[in-house]
């Protein structure tokens, strides 16, 4: 069986900058052999000079990237993308502005031919608080924050420092993301958005990642992320033992864990220190979600899964 295809989900509400980021990705010279699945061709500036071939729902660009529309069924369009020979080297799916990126990530969690890479969620720093309070879409905007592995706080130029700091803390309090980028016009280093699968064997750089909020962007491409979701609850004693025993290659972990008898807690782990505090309002209840960031030398995904599953009880979440 061929190696599973890395699968990245790009989420965030309408206007957060997904299209801008997609345009950056599509224009990047190194994007070759990636299939980019979008909701709407029309808004992308696919430069005619970059188009090598066009047919119906897909455009092949000169850099080797294939861009196609999802239409009304991700199931169907993903089947088409995966039927191509050869398979794409990587797939990036733009989740609709009202989709829960976690449910899109499930495609890769379930299919053996896909491997979940990262869930990237863009946030409009100026609008996010209002979005989360909106009667029609507030619930979904909050789900999107919770589902992120990587947050891109966009439109940083539109807010002043005080608002940016306050909004960032508010958003991070409601997200499991282990890394946050602040950006203007979605300008983030593209290598940082995809796991370094090709470089997995590379030795970790000697670098202090503990203050990840400030860590230089050009180093993020040397770390791995791994995420875990469950609807069962965690046992506090076993979780604490797990956290105390994590290898040093795990640099950071964050998430919302439903503790038996206690309810949903925010978990923060940085280096050797961790805290568990009640999760704020707005974080969707009924499930736990954990994101881990580490050097390429941290335990393999399957081993991390075994470790974390060991702290989970058989009971469903509260």
């Amino acid at each position: 069986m061929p190696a599973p295809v890395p699968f990245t989900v790009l989420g965030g509400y309408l206007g957060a900058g997904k299209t801008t980021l997609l345009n950056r990705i599509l224009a990047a010279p190194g994007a070759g052999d990636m299939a980019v699945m979008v909701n709407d061709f029309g808004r992308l500036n696919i430069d005619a000079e970059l188009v090598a071939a066009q047919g119906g729902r897909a455009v092949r660009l000169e850099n080797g990237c294939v861009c196609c529309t999802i239409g009304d069924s991700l199931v169907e369009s993903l089947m088409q993308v995966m039927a191509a020979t050869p398979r794409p080297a990587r797939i990036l799916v733009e989740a609709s502005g009202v989709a829960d990126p976690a449910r899109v990530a499930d495609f890769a969690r379930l299919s053996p031919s896909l491997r979940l890479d990262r869930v990237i969620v863009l946030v409009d720093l100026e609008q996010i608080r209002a979005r989360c309070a909106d009667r029609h879409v507030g619930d979904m905007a909050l789900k999107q924050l919770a589902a992120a592995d990587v947050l891109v706080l966009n439109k940083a130029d539109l807010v002043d420092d005080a608002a940016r700091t306050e909004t960032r803390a508010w958003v991070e309090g409601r997200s499991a993301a282990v890394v946050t980028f602040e950006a203007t016009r979605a300008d983030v280093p593209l290598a940082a958005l995809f796991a370094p699968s090709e470089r997995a064997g590379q030795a970790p750089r000697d670098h202090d990642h503990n203050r990840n909020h400030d860590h230089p962007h050009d180093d993020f491409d040397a770390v791995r992320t791994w995420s875990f979701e469950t609807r069962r609850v965690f046992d506090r004693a076993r979780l604490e033992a797990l956290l105390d025993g994590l290898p040093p290659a795990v640099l950071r972990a964050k998430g919302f864990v439903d503790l038996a008898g206690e309810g949903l807690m925010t978990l923060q782990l940085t280096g050797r220190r961790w805290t568990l505090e009640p999760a704020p309002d707005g974080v969707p209840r009924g499930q736990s979600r954990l994101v881990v960031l580490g050097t390429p030398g941290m335990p393999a995904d399957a081993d991390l899964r075994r470790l974390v599953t060991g702290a989970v009880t058989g009971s469903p979440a509260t």
Partner: protein
Amino acid sequence: MGETTVIYPARKIITMLAARPQATHVAVRGGRILGVGDLDDLTGWGDYEIDDRFADKVILPGFVEGHSHTLEGVLWQYTYVGFFDRTGPDGHHWPGAKSIDEVVARLREVDTGSGPVVGWGFDPIYFTGRRMNKDDLDKVATDRSVLVLHASGHLLNVNSAVLNAAGVTADTDVHGVFKGPDGEPTGEMQEFAALYMAFEASGANIYNQIGGESSLHNFGRVCHLAGVTTATDLYARLTPETTAALLRVVPDPSFPIRVVPAYGALADTPENGAALVKSLMDKSSAKLRFGLVKMMTDGSIQGFTARIKWPGYYNGAPNGLWNAPPEELVRAFNVFHDAGLQVHMHTNGNEASELMLDTIADTLARNPRPDHRHTLQHAQMMDEALLRRAKALGVAVNMFANHLYYWGEQHLALTLGPERAHRMEPFATAQRLGVPYAMHSDAPVTPVAPLFTAWCAVERRTAEGRVLGEAEKISVADALRAITLGAAYTLKMDHEVGSIETGKRADFAILEQDPLAVPSAELKDIPIWGTVLGGIVQPLHAE
């Protein structure tokens, strides 16, 4: 006028024409209705032939199914395993599968020994006891994939072969994968990710058949069996391939129905979509009518994905999903409206219905258009205030009568609770307020059977026989109007079909009994002899 005039005497003709509600004879010339009345009213047009094959039948306008999907025709290529009886395109009557064992037995029976085994329409909500699991489907096959799609459209069951091929085990902690008390996946799952995994692992693919010629033929036959002469495909892809298939298949005189495809608006930008629909309108013909647009806004109530207003779902489930950000729905509607197109909007929950009524109100204030006939589809939770707004805005509603029967008990117990369940599909209120209304099956979600749909609106009985909302019952006559002229109105075809009236197309449903005379509880059981489409007599069985 060299064309032949044929006069059909009938036991009774129910016209839907206020000026002459009932008659005994209808004259047909050149595929159209020359006149309706008694014989003396019709003989003055010149030479005629009397065709008395309907002399003991009851003639109604051909039924109009205002909300169905040709996907029905795709699914019949697989095996029906639903709880309720259903008739296939070949006329074969499939009795409902009333237990897990019956489902398994049927799948074993149809299995050809190679390729994936796919069942559809599975509906375990009336089963007592345990849920179906992989061990059941392993009795069908262990060496090949077995998939069973649920009627609700949100769940599926698979056998061990599928789970093994996908590597789904007790360690798989993914949202839609159900686990048993032993922690092992049961084989039952939900959400699109699970569907993708199952299709990928099994090699089954229903998508590449949607809109294909064989699915159209199946769909046409299923409609014909139900007395339908005009049916919508209310979320049509209209790719070059499926459009070509429609243009090849539907105009052929042997194809039994008129088809009204409504362009599915999520496939492209609204600007491109509007341009496509307008370009296709030139290709419209007597039997194939382009020009409608369909927008999806929310999910389904039984799947807890409809957007509903406070106090939300009765069992506490979180609110449902939008199909696109509300701003985009608003923008798309404006583009289609400004292009002069008629828009049908799927809105199951009342929050979705309200959003689209807000949108229509704003759009009409900016760009008024008399008689736009934008239509809310399903509109299952409209309260009086929403219906008053629909009336004020000139919006029609096509309500999902069949839900009362198929999911009424679930709405009562789980999704909406008693108060809101009893006033779902508020036909009597719509009638009282003068809101133009129709009713539908949403096939393949429920079977195409307009007489059954009318029965649902008249009797309002759940599958367990309970009456849901006595006060929202309507009369048989009103329900018959809804499945003919009412639906035609929502398609802007009420000047052509939907009643038996001079100048209209000679489309008839030929019934063995008089729906106005039988007890209303038996409305759904009236046998259908066949139809007439544009003057062509189409019996169900060889005469």
